[in-house]
């Protein structure tokens, strides 16, 4: 989230699209009801299904899953056509005025530079014209035909209300109503918030879904303001923490990148990360990359990370592929190239697409270690459960080790929420039975492996032998120790560069925040964006001061938000070029002539002049990007792309299947279905009664939503002779499930490109262990395709067929 949950109460319009906040985030959704009740805010829901969120919405519009880009570009087109643009904001705070290179173009659904063989673009033309002064060329009047604004205008012009209806199946009048309601938020005193979740991310073009809304929010002037923003609602309470701490194969902590094998030494690695400002006088904060990277290396390897060994750069693994995402790992596993797998706190048999492939892959392992507080289907993948897990146990040689861990209430630590708040929590109960904290288990594995390396050596034992492990009890690092390590400390006295006699931070003390980090090896910091969470002032994540001066919803004394306890990212954009708030009644920051004052921690230097330093300091431009240059693999602008399995062809280019640059493995291509064979458009989702595959173990949740079902319209039920509450079989090219049918008015057939599209809704909470009735998940059906930029599997749009059937057999 750019903003915080509590900030949603400040909004005038909530757009829930690509998510179902009331269903999946009922506690956070309270802020939507607050905004409605206190401010008279309106709520719009755009979704293939009339959801629980829609049940309390002011307006609901249906949409075919996977076509959000067309809808959103249609809204942008509407706003431009109707002059509903926050012009001052757009001109000053976006790259609308930047001139784009001549080579860049878009036609037939593709951008310049497409190579069908490589399934990739040559992105060199997707960039700005650079001036002789080394800065990007701009035209503040927006007259230049090649300026971003004019290119955008042209790009979105195809997305007329008629085109939106044709692609999305959204009736024209409903689309226009939504567009009109949204466009009103171009007023500087009206804000809109976008609440989205996996309904946008889990597509092969997920990142572009989000970009389309971000661009809309930018031209409406809704980023950085109270009640605005792009608000990704994270699923797990700590999934934000997962990405922040780099638990992804291509990331280190704090969004530092894992090096690639082409970057053979530290200086090569740093050379592409200088992030020189593209406009004069702008702040490009990533210029501090080296400080964060060196401090990270010091945190990892202490004295072994020295200037003369490139800060132990060689100790880091180097990527030979863009990422070892889960799809790639299971592809490798399935082709027999993975021996062992440690599965810590997740359940691939239900969570990853194409369950048949996942099970087949696990069956080829020598060993599988699962770490989980609960019994999982993954730990039991070898067990026969009749039709629910029809597997020949004897044929499997994988050795499975189940290590019981603790759940959140049985451990101390912090959880990072969607609003980037690091909230400390305390242990509420003792772990049952043999359950151990994950930290204990990981420490035991590490200590034993280190001992083996110490005794037996190996090709390169240094990264293991030299790993910093300075904990009070090496057998189990304490949460506070880890938090301090993440925050960072001075390794030698940190002196004021202006006054060398003045010690800012004495050696051994915790740094106040990341502004004190240095690139000379004198500081260590585990995760720079978290720096400040636990400093000499104490554990800031444990703060529980709920004072909120003037009811802004900022709550600066409540826990700690990264970065620097900032609650709204880009908050400098809440004020105009003179530093005056766009909406005085919703002031966040204000320039008092010498410095920024207000309710939040400013997102730029506190004394940076409003007419000089622009708000988006994490971009080299200092402004936000309507045109994202070559930074995304699938285009500098979003464009309509169909799902890989779609009931209708891409109207811009019928030959195009899915995202043209999404990675697909050869073995999976044969498993894509067509609409002839699989006529219905399926989507998967969560239900409020359950949390993923955990709560089916809980009798209360199991009683509230006991059994796997699929939702279909009355029309589809009539077409296939399905009765409400009866059994149906749903199958795709990859698998088949049996479910109870919920026949509902909440799903209606859509008409897209002249064709009736029936939607099949498949919730995902059932498996073959737990207190609830045995069932299946949509991942038995969904395709093995990842998002083009980040490889998030596409669970939200695929094709199935459906027929009435009988109850599944428990014995095979």
């Amino acid at each position, binding site marked *: 989230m750019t903003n915080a949950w509590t900030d949603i109460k400040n909004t005038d319009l909530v757009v829930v699209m690509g998510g179902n906040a*009331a*269903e999946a985030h*009922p*506690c956070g*959704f*309270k802020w*939507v*009801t607050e905004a*409605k*009740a206190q401010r*008279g805010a309106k709520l719009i829901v755009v979704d293939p299904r*009339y959801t*629980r*969120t*829609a*049940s*309390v919405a*002011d307006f*609901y519009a249906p949409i075919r899953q996977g076509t959000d880009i067309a809808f959103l570009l249609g809204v942008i087109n509407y706003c431009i056509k109707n002059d509903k643009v926050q012009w001052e904001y757009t001109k000053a705070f976006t790259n609308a005025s930047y001139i784009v290179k001549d080579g860049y173009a878009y036609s037939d659904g593709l951008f310049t530079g497409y190579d069908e063989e490589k399934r990739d673009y040559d992105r060199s033309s997707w960039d700005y014209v650079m001036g002789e002064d080394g800065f990007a060329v701009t035209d503040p009047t927006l007259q230049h035909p090649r300026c971003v604004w004019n290119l955008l205008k042209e790009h979105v012009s195809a997305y007329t209300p008629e085109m939106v209806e044709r692609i999305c199946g959204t009736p024209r009048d409903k689309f226009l109503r939504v567009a009109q309601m949204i466009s009103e938020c171009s007023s500087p005193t009206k804000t809109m918030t976008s609440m989205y979740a996996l309904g946008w991310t889990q597509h092969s073009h997920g990142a572009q879904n989000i970009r389309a809304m971000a661009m809309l929010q930018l031209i409406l002037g809704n980023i950085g303001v109270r009640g605005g923003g792009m608000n990704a609602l994270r699923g797990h309470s700590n999934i934000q923490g997962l990405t922040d701490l780099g638990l992804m194969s291509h990331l280190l902590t704090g969004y530092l990148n894992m090096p690639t094998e082409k970057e053979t030494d530290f200086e090569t690695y740093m050379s592409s990360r200088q992030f020189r400002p593209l406009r004069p006088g702008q702040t490009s904060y990533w210029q501090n990359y080296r400080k964060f990277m060196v401090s990270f290396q010091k945190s990892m390897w202490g004295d072994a990370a020295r200037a003369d060994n490139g800060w132990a750069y060689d100790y880091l693994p180097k990527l030979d592929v863009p990422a070892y995402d889960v799809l790639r790992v299971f592809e490798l596993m399935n082709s027999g190239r993975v021996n062992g797998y440690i599965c810590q706190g997740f359940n691939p048999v239900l969570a990853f697409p194409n369950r048949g492939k996942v099970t087949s892959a696990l069956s080829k392992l020598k060993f599988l270690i699962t770490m989980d507080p609960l019994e999982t289907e993954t730990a039991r993948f070898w067990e026969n459960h009749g039709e629910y897990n029809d597997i020949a146990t004897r044929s499997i040689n994988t050795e499975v080790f189940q290590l019981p861990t603790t759940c959140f209430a049985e451990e101390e630590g912090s959880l990072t929420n969607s609003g980037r708040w690091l909230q400390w929590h305390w242990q509420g109960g003792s772990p049952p039975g043999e359950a151990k904290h994950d930290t204990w288990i990981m420490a035991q594995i590490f200590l034993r492996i280190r001992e083996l390396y110490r005794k037996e050596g190996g090709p390169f034992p240094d990264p293991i032998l030299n790993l910093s492990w300075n904990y009070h009890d090496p057998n189990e690092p304490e949460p506070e120790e880890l938090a301090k390590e993440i925050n960072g400390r001075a390794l030698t006295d940190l002196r004021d560069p202006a006054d060398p006699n003045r010690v800012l931070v004495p050696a051994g003390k915790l740094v106040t925040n990341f502004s004190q980090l240095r690139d000379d090896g004198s500081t260590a910091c585990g995760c720079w964006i978290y720096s400040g969470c636990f400093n000499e002032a104490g554990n800031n994540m444990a703060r529980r001061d709920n004072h909120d001066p003037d009811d802004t919803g900022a709550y600066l004394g409540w826990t700690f938000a990264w970065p620097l306890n900032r609650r709204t990212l880009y908050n400098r954009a809440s004020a105009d070029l003179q530093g005056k708030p766009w909406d005085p009644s919703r002031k966040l920051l204000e320039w008092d002539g010498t410095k920024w004052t207000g309710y939040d921690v400013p997102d730029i230097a506190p004394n940076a002049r409003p007419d000089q330093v622009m708000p988006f300091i994490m971009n080299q431009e200092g402004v936000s990007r309507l045109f994202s240059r070559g930074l995304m693999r699938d285009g500098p602008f979003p464009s309509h792309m169909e799902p890989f399995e779609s009931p209708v062809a891409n109207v811009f280019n019928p030959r195009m299947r899915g995202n043209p640059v999404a990675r697909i493995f050869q073995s999976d291509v044969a498993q894509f279905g067509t609409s002839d064979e699989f006529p219905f458009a399926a989507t998967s989702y969560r239900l*409020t*009664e359950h949390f993923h595959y955990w709560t089916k173990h809980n*009798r*209360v*949740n*199991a*009683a*509230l*939503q*006991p*059994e*796997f*079902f699929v939702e279909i319209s009355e029309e589809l039920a009539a077409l296939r002779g399905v*009765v*409400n*509450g*009866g059994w149906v079989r749903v199958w795709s090219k990859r698998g088949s499930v049996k479910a*109870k*049918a*919920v*026949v*509902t*008015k*909440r799903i209606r057939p859509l008409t897209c490109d002249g064709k009736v599209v029936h939607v099949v809704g498949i919730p995902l909470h059932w498996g073959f262990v737990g*207190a*609830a*009735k045995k069932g299946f998940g949509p991942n038995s059906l969904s395709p093995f395709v990842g998002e083009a930029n980040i490889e998030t599997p596409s669970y939200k749009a695929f094709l199935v067929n459906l027929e009435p059937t009988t109850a599944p057999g428990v014995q095979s």
Partner: protein
Amino acid sequence: MSDSPRTAVSNPPVQPMASNLGQGDLIRRSATDELPPPQRQLTPVAKLIDVSKCIGCKACQSACVEWNDTTPAVGENVGAYTNPHDLTENMFTLMRFTEWVNPSTDNLEWLIRKDGCMHCADPGCLKACPAPGAIVQYTNGIVDFIHENCIGCGYCVKGCPFNIPRISKADHRAYKCTLCSDRVAVGQGPACAKACPTQAIVFGTKEDMKRHAEGRIADLKSRGYANAGLYDPPGVGGTHVMYVLHHNDQPHIYAGLPDDPKISAVVQTWKGLTKYVGLAAMGFMAAGSLIHGVFTRPNRVSREDEENAEKLVKTGGAEPPPPAEERA
């Protein structure tokens, strides 16, 4: 002792507290004619369920299960989101889901109503209950089942205009929402209201809740729900669980919420007229017999009868029998 709590969102004190609800707080007690007047008047409380704010998350249901420590069975899906499928002795409250197409807009509305005891000012269950003290009503308006006095007859089921009480097959006692009387007794609001993430369920004094409802109704009217209103049915003397409905002109669309609930005339007759007329009839019968017994000589067999009989026996029926009878 303190008065009724004003909200459900406060946190409980850490130190133990004594219950604030006792025998001296009763205004009605089932099957009890001579109840001493209450020692004080507590401020009437109410739970307000704003259907228009409810997202149907069932947090209220799970909070209810957790607080009351009940164990609803894991059932099956029968093509609906309403689970369990009905109120049970283990499920005192239930989200009922109705898909309703508004005929005036042709738009679908998903009406989600939290069903449960309404805590009527004039409770039909209490009226019907034959077991002294099995159902009580406190001066704050809470209608509570006192399980140790319950005999499991199911009369409350017949008395209730809202179809709420359920009789346990395990212990043969009636169960329903208590409005968390045990929490209210120590200054806390009901568990469901506390758990409700959107504050669709709020709790406080009945006056405060009515005022709160006014604001909500104004908001709904501003959003085009011209018939938005408060459901506080006068037929049962008003209730201590009230709804804000978008369509207060037709409560029945909310999963059969009664349009004009009142205690059934049949039940009224049964617990009223029948009792008195019955007593009169039986009394009349007994008294009539008694008077007859006193004023009339017993019908004895006379010596003459005996002699005649013996004569008949001796003659062996030589005397001609009376003419053959026919059936009437």
